[in-house]
């Protein structure tokens, strides 16, 4: 049974998407439970795989039994769960499950009459994201990328007002990214004649510094950057996620960009190698500079926004800079930080968007000035929000502290001081925004506990939204406390030889 686990991870949401789409016609009430069930199966399989990978090492699965290790050739598509992607798969399926439970009330409120299609698309999106995470074939990765992208275009476009235009811009940028990636895959295929990641990685060192491979590498990177909204391709993200329905943003913002970062890490670490990056120092310094700019630009724009959703979106832009920068430091702590931050940031962004979603659900909008008295109206939500912001700032013992610690260590070891400065600046900006929100939400109204002041009625978000939000916020602390076992047993094994501590 355990050898079938890798495929179950993607089959769960895929079958749920199909069944839920059919159920949407005949039994609309069934589509939500079906999707929750599919995601629960996938999440259970992914969690089990984390333990198996930690104990036994990488698990391979050959689709349809084509071309297994018994032969010395590869025909079919391989899917792999190893120490680089197992945590990502668990995080994606877990967050998707919690978000599916959380989204019910929001979808009923925001997409009244259309909610039955939402869940099928939601499940299809998660299938695509898990597929990118699990596949061992670079062309298959492109296919899953487009499955995820097409469903996310629709999820964004079902919002109000500017959502169509935002989705159209995202579509143009996303398609350009996917096409560049595909072109890069073509260059690798010309040189190696294979698409299997393991095969390519064994063939590449012998080919040395062939120009076609370098062009392929750059094209794939550009494609991945367009998908993950890395500076200077970040223009589409804030609009798309801010105008999308809140429930769509709650699943897209934490997962879609992180999975693209994982794809970049996979190409950098497994397909090409860290030595390949160190041999081309020209791009390394440029990318590090771009990452610092991404962090600064994201932080600056988040400071100028007055809408909570847009602030959260610009946080995503700056966090992308953390991960790309950490990966391109190309040393032990930097890569550890980047790999850990992919998971940590998925959790943090998810908790942030869930808390913002609760606020939007009760207050109707998310302008900063509407938050007056929010701490008295919805104390539990705001407590979760403060914990999340603390994690984003990097307060111990939350997970944000540890990833930042690794990243700063890596940057110091590589001597890239502008990256250290950008990381600290971004923490500072997030602290300023937290204090501003506390100021508006807590201090601008007369304190209700003082006699003579008007009482502020409690208006907490419904329990079905509150429980996932609080669980996610507590998860941030739990993830932080579990840092050292995670890094020691899993992430350090994903590091290339020679970089592991």
């Amino acid at each position: 049974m355990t050898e079938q686990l890798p495929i179950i991870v993607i089959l769960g949401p895929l079958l749920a998407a199909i069944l839920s789409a059919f159920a949407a016609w005949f039994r609309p009430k069934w589509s939500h439970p079906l999707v929750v069930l599919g995601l629960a199966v996938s999440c259970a399989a992914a969690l089990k795989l984390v333990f198996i990978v930690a104990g036994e090492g990488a698990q391979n699965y050959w689709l349809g039994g084509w071309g297994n290790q018994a032969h010395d050739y590869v025909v079919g598509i391989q899917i792999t769960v190893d120490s680089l992607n197992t945590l990502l798969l668990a995080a994606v399926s877990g967050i998707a499950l919690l978000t599916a439970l959380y989204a019910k009330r929001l979808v009923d409120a925001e997409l009244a009459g259309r909610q039955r299609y939402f869940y099928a698309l939601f499940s299809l999106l998660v299938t695509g994201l898990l597929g990118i995470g699990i596949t061992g074939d670079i062309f298959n990765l492109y296919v899953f990328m487009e499955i995820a992208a097409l469903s996310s275009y629709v999820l964004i476009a079902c919002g109000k007002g500017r959502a169509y235009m935002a989705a159209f811009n995202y579509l143009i940028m996303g398609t350009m990214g996917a096409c560049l990636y595909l072109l890069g895959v073509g260059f690798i295929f010309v040189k190696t004649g294979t698409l299997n990641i393991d095969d390519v990685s064994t063939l590449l060192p012998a080919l040395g510094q062939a120009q076609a491979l370098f062009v392929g590498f750059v094209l794939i990177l550009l494609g991945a950057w367009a998908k993950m909204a890395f500076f200077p391709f970040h223009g589409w993200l804030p609009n798309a996620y801010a105008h999308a329905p809140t429930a769509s943003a709650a699943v897209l913002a934490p997962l879609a960009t992180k999975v693209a970062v994982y794809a970049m890490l996979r190409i950098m670490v497994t397909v090409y190698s860290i030595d390949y990056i160190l041999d081309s120092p020209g791009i390394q310094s440029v990318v590090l500079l771009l990452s610092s700019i991404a962090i600064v630009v994201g932080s600056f724009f988040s400071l100028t926004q007055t809408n909570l959703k847009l602030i959260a979106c610009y946080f995503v832009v700056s966090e992308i800079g953390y991960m790309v920068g950490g990966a391109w430091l190309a040393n032990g702590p930097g890569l550890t930080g980047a790999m850990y931050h992919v998971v940590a940031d998925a959790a943090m962004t998810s908790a942030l968007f869930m808390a913002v979603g609760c606020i939007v659900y009760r207050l109707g909008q998310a302008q900063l000035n509407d938050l007056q008295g929010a701490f008295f109206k919805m104390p539990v939500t705001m407590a979760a929000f403060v914990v999340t912001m603390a994690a984003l700032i990097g307060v111990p013992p939350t997970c944000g502290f540890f990833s930042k610690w690794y990243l700063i260590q890596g940057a110091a070891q590589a001597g890239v001081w502008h990256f250290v400065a950008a990381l600290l600046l971004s923490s500072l900006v997030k602290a300023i925004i937290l204090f501003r929100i506390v100021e508006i939400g807590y201090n601008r109204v007369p304190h209700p506990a003082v006699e003579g002041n008007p009482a502020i009625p409690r208006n907490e978000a419904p329990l079905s939204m509150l429980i996932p939000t609080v669980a996610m916020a507590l998860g941030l602390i739990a993830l932080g406390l579990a840092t050292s076992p995670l890094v020691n047993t899993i992430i350090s094994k994903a590091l290339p030889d020679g970089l592991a501590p």
Partner: protein
Amino acid sequence: MENLIANFNYVIVVILMMIGLWSMLAQKNLIKKCIGMAIFQTGIILFFISIGAKRGAKVPILTGDEAPVVEQLANPLTQILMLTAIVVGVATLGMALALAQKIYRQHASFDEDEILENQRK
């Protein structure tokens, strides 16, 4: 020069992709962006087909016990990959046109500047 003529298909691929990329990024008209996207994808499909093409090669179906001669067989993989890419391209183009139609109903215009102007009001 001779190299360029011998590989004229790659030259055309590059030209197609440049046209596509330019109109995706620089054109203001949404429909022209969609057309650019289709041209870009066509360029990539041609590129893959070109790298798999071989003069005088046969379909790689093995009959009997004779050992296959690699030089005489075409690589079928690129064409299969492109079948998938065509499907993806059709879906993306359909999605883009559907969105463009929705935008037109909202703003009665395909022009990006006019739409942005409309949204600011």
